[in-house]
């Protein structure tokens, strides 16, 4: 099998696992702290559950995506493994 295929498959698996983690963070946090919130406190005018359940994972996903795309992802055929 060609190296690009193996690279791409590994990278795709990496992305899927990361996406599931993001989902667990966002849905888990919001499920516990947003749906059941008796009172919504604000941080800089934004509900706390949006900050910790959406904005923070969004920023983390952005940083991860930048790292993945610019550093981790290999050029075609550049398979050191």
């Amino acid at each position: 099998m060609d190296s690009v295929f193996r690279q791409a498959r590994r990278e795709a698996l990496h992305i899927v696992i990361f996406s599931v983690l993001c989902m667990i963070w966002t849905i888990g946090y919001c499920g516990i702290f947003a749906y059941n919130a008796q009172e919504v406190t604000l941080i800089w005018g934004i509900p706390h559950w949006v900050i910790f359940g959406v904005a923070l994972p969004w920023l983390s996903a952005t940083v991860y995506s930048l790292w993945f795309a610019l550093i981790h992802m290999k050029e075609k055929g550049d398979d050191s493994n």
Partner: protein
Amino acid sequence: MTPTDNSSLIAFICYTAVVLALAVISNYAFKKRSFLSEYFLGSRGLGVIALALTFGATSASAGSFAGFPSLIYAHGWSLALWIASYMIFPICSMGILGKRLSVISQRTGAITVPDILRERFESRTLALLSTSLMAILLCVYLVPQFTLAALIMQQLLGSSPIYQELAIQLQTVLPELIPQTANPEYVFGLLLFALLVVVYTTFGGFRAVVWTDILQGFVMVIGVLLMLIFAIIQVGGLPNASSAMSSMQPPRLGTASFNLDMPAPPNGIRIDSETWFMLGDDLYRTNEAVHILEGTQESASVKVTQIMTPFEIDRITADGVAELPATAVIHELTPYARGDGQSGTYMKPPGPSPSDPNGFLPLGLAVSFFAFWALAGTGQPSNMVRLMAFTGTRTLRRAIASLVTYFLMIYFPLVIIFCCARLLAPGLDHTPDRIMPVMAYILSEGAGVPWLAGILIAAPFAAAMSTVDSFILMISSSVVRDVYQQSIHPCASQRSLKWISYGTTLLIGLIATFGALYPPQFLQYIIVFTGGGLAVAFLAPVALGIYWPRFNKSGAIMSMGLGIIVYALLYLIGFIILNDITPVRPLGLDPLIWGFLASLIGGWIGTYLTGSNSEEVLEKFFGKPLPTQDIS
């Protein structure tokens, strides 16, 4: 609400001129290249910015700039969770399939998704099945896009006397063209939009679409960031807006007619949409224009919204509410199924809902939507095509990095802007699809730069254009390449392919325009339905096809067929049982999830029940790289 001068019209004309110029340049600059490859795939020459912005602009459809804002306006901060999946959208939609699709399309010479499927499974039937599915779903998808674009045009240019005059002239000259129930200004806006998009798409092809996507991508992000700044300033800071939202109660939606004591004068009586009026101590706002025709004493029934939040009533009536030239009679008022009389419902999920007692976003639906956007984005054939239009992983890597930043600058700010809209533009709850253009006017006038409305409103307009052009071209490419060239006339000349491509592109634009003459309701739901359907039909067959060597033709057909059947059935059952476009959601999960699971299972069963693939296919798709093929 709208400026009385022609500044928006001038801004729109300038924008249109630039878009058409790009199409003309594209047409002339690349005449000598192979027609099909150039017209439908830009000769695989996308660079980083082009790939990122064409991907972003196509994904950010009119739904993002009209449907999504209307949902934020109607349901509040819950939409932050609804859209949260866009945090992984860029890396999923480009990273999972991008590298493989790029390599395979170069090896096989494929220029459409059905092309890839035909090569991979050596099946003309599968290519035709996928082309048919794509054409049907995309045509349905185009109708709400055209509708939203026409609404935007109506809002953008409706205040211009020239526009109003031309709309009336059109109605006079071609009365049979305009349905009796349609607003002539809407129809004129629709025809203008259709003419512009169809002309530049037909004439310029893929490269013109990508160039305009780049322009539109910049317009969108600049428009959103300007609106964010203006909105936060005009509500007195985000903490102020959110504190006010904490006290808000959902309004009541109803209808009203307007009566006169004597027959209306020669030109009739008109009361603008978004006009405030009082009935006793109750405050209402019209959500449609009222017309009492000459010689009559009563208007048709129009949508109205009753404001229920005490502080909003005090704020709006503080300067007095003007007397109307007619007396309002309220016919019905419906309280929200969830959230009526409750403060703070806009601040947390599930959010208020006029029709669903479980609220707008129950937890199961939040799970569904998180998976939905990522799966739908990855499985969109329009996105896959873009992943076939570049060469070199470096382009893909940088495009992912650009897109993830781009989406962060668009979607989260939109949530903030349209939460602020509840304060700046209250009482539009019956026609929330208009909130984007209304906010563009409010914000630009509030900032003392009314001419800027033309630029701000260009953002949703650009979003509609950039999606529509890509989809028209994709349907056209599938029909020309996969039906005509592959099945009917394999030896067709470049010249005949060119004219058939032009004709098909034009025809698809006309079909969508005709559909939008009778605008459907629930635009965002139709966009979700068709977008989901496309993902269910294509994601598993393409992903398994490029990553699983054992996956074969029977698996692909079962995967596509079973997925779309399960998906459509859940909508159909919902349609019959609930008498609504809302689907049945077993375990609270969206039909897309069930359709995708069915698609995976169908693919697995189909593959293991039948034989393996030919050595040639395995070599071409999974073996050592073969020389790149030229496209004829």
